[in-house]
């Protein structure tokens, strides 16, 4: 063992994960293969980083209810949506609307708003407006479209 513990422990703080696992031909990797105490420290770091990774994955996962998209009236998607629910869209435009498909609707060719919405909301969404805001959920004459008005 040529590397001393103090040097090894200092290098552990910036080493690549593979070195921490004792892989490769570097002096640090060789030291970790031979020194149980420094190896325990490296394993602790790797375990902590795995915990951080798991925590970030957990935080990035959506909650049980699906949030809604506040669409801006000027967006081209909003314009296309407005053609689906004309009477209500104008009133809702000032607040920002989301049109959600519900129930089976006739398939239209190409990549449509409905297909995007389906990709966004594989399950039935739950409307949960942000703090200080309210939401109204309205059925439309089109059984494939529900209007959510967030204000």
């Amino acid at each position: 063992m040529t590397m001393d513990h103090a040097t090894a422990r200092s290098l552990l703080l910036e080493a690549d994960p593979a070195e921490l696992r004792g892989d490769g031909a570097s002096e640090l990797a060789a030291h970790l293969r031979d020194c149980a105490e420094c190896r325990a420290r490296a394993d602790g770091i790797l375990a902590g980083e795995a915990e951080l990774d798991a925590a970030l994955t957990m935080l990035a996962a959506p909650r049980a209810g699906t949030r809604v998209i506040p669409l801006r009236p000027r967006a081209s998607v909003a314009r296309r949506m407005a053609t689906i629910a004309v009477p209500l869209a104008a009133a809702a435009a000032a607040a920002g609307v989301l049109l959600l498909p519900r129930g089976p609707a006739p398939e239209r060719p190409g990549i449509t708003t409905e297909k995007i919405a389906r990709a966004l909301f594989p399950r039935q969404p739950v409307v949960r407006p942000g703090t200080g805001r309210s939401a109204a959920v309205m059925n439309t004459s089109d059984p494939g479209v529900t209007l959510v008005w967030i204000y």
Partner: protein
Amino acid sequence: MRADPPVAEPLDALAARARTGDEGAFAALANAVRDQVRRWALVRTGDPDDAEDVAQNVVIRLHRSLAAFEGRSRFATWLYRLTANAATEMARGHARRTRLHDAAAVDHAGASPAMADRIGEMENARMAALVRGFFAELPGRQREVFDLVDLQGHTPAEAAEMLEIEQSTARVHLLRARRAIRERILAAHPTLMDDR
């Protein structure tokens, strides 16, 4: 920790098919990238709700912009930039609203209320402390490089390309982030800190 980057070759192929108007490929692509985009957005924005909004916007942008993807970079790189732009625009929107309303009501120094809620729900206190430190102590760019390289398995060169920074800069961010995070991890394990 994953050994392989989560955005791999099949996504490039899926993107190529979606570009031709294959709606099934687009739906598959949108579903395949959402978790990844949410993760990137979370690390960038530090807010789970914002991350979800960014992910939804990115899927819509993906639909609008896919035709412009020429395949000169990897799809993951292009998608990351789409995500970064969406997150930046969202941050600008927040800043505008904050100026319009009461700036004092928002505490930028601490975790967002949504983030604080989600961290509070974690049963593992050590994990919660790690995440809190990750967002509170690391500058955004360090967080991004560390997440991309050490947690998601991209190479530093790939991370530099995704973030549009020099490789040497990415390396500096990575080493600083590692040091900060690892010191925190070791501090949480007093038995590992015993000197011989």
